[in-house]
């Protein structure tokens, strides 16, 4: 079966984010960018499905500026077979991303679509669910285990109370949580090989989707920062402070 994986280019998770002085957004100039960590987990899961003989082909798709090619190449080096780059410099919000992905789904007809549960820049946690709605598929969100059997997929989900397992008809959408797998690193030979894998380039207009902003960001600010408090000498002092100064116990 064919698996489609959506990956997003975001700020590297180790980078200390700085808000622009004019409060229009976050400063991304000369900042290290990377594949969204949850998307790495999505790619890894697809590759494992291929290694198990469940997936036959892995198509990776990204929506973003020219530089997002790097994330496609990374996914190809990790084991995806070919890429689709929907190139745009516009800010693409989750609903529009889902609409673009829907048209890719219609074209490619994958049996499984795997996305990250959340972009670590917008912290939206929306796109997979929206794509599932738009394509009329079932969804296994926040997945920590995925088992494909016949025309069904069983997904164990990380929920607030613990774990929940659902069965979904294929085709289905899956969004990854942290415990689904531990992504591998790309080997040098695979990075070289990835350069030769095909990547198709298109624009949102080619897919008939107009990228509009339904949410307008009015301003972006630095959060009120907490001040470091004091160091206590020992446990007795800690308990004394908590009880008599902070009065929280």
């Amino acid at each position, binding site marked *: 079966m064919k698996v489609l994986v959506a990956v997003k280019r975001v700020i590297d998770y180790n980078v200390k984010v700085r808000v622009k002085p004019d409060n229009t957004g*976050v400063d991304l100039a000369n900042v290290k960018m990377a594949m969204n960590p949850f998307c790495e987990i999505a790619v890894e899961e697809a590759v494992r499905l291929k290694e198990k003989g469940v997936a036959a082909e892995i198509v990776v798709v990204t929506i973003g500026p020219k530089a997002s090619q790097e994330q496609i190449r990374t996914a190809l080096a990790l084991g995806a077979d070919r890429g689709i780059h929907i190139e745009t410099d516009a800010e693409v919000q989750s609903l529009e991303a889902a609409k673009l992905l829907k048209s890719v789904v219609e074209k490619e007809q994958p049996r499984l679509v795997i996305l990250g549960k959340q972009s670590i820049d917008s912290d939206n946690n929306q796109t997979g669910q929206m794509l599932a709605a738009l394509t009329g598929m079932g969804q296994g969100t*926040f997945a920590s285990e995925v088992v494909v059997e016949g025309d069904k997929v069983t997904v164990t989900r990380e929920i607030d109370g613990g774990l929940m397992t659902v069965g979904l008809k294929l085709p289905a959408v899956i969004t990854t*949580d942290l415990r689904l797998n531990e992504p591998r690193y790309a080997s040098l030979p695979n990075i070289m090989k990835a350069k030769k894998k095909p990547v198709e380039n298109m624009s949102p207009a080619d897919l008939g989707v107009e990228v509009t902003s339904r949410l307008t960001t009015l301003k972006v600010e630095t959060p009120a920062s907490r001040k*470091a408090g004091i160091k206590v000498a020992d446990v007795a002092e800690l308990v004394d402070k908590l009880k008599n100064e902070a009065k*929280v116990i």
Partner: protein
Amino acid sequence: MSILVIADHDNNKLTPSTLNVVAAATAIGGDIDILISGENCGTVAEAAATVAGVNKVLVADNPVYGHSLAENLSELVAEVGKGYSHILASAGTTGKDFMPRVAALLDVAQVSDIMRVESEDTFVRPIYAGNAIATVKANDSIKVITVRPTGFDPVAAEGGSAAVEALDIVKDAGLSEFINEELAKSDRPDLSGADIVVSGGRGMQNGENFRMLEAVADQLGAAMGASRAAVDAGFVPNDMQVGQTGKIVAPQLYIAVGISGAIQHLAGMGDSKVIAAINKDEDAPIFQVADYGLVADLFEAVPQLEEELKKVL
């Protein structure tokens, strides 16, 4: 304006965060209705009817809604919700699962995880793991919103007298089925709403050692939390993870033990009133946010803490 709040519950009890979501709805202003969907959820409907400020309680009680499967629930909410100006739910894992589906069915954007209401269409929410705070204006006619409970003080659970109305809407999308559930059983308070949280990290070394923390938590009547590293290592279950991609907590007191204080962890507990940290590394970033820091080996400090607490509690 008319606001539909989707209640979070387990078919028996209303989850306390629903009261915070009603508070967010109150801040927006307008008539507030609560939708309860579930199976044999009559007691939840009764509880919702007494919540302060609620106009009407709508109840869709049917086996298809028993496990809040997003495919079924989103169709229900989209149908009921299209008559409202705002649809709100808690940003817990249930709300995160079905709400974007509702938004897509209605062809509107979702505003995730709001922590403040500026006006009926403008909301404040954290981005980049809370390292930036965005004010966003929603331009669609229906606003689909998930609410970060810790951003809003809960409304009173009593005092209201809303009318309860049964809905005869059965949506079975036929795409998904519930198989099973492994829910953490604990006599401790729920992590999301607890007054005191005791959390352990990789420094705990193994799951067995968490017993030391449990002893302290029980003395304090606290909930237990953990860092991602402790969950990934299998010391404790996933439902204990606090952080950007886990649970958001804002207790009166957060005690971090053997946790370094990565930004992703701070994103989940940085709004705690008082933070205490025990870490053997005096340069650990957690000390930059801790009100009280103790540089010590946790294997000595935690047993001592239990002894000291015995004296004062």
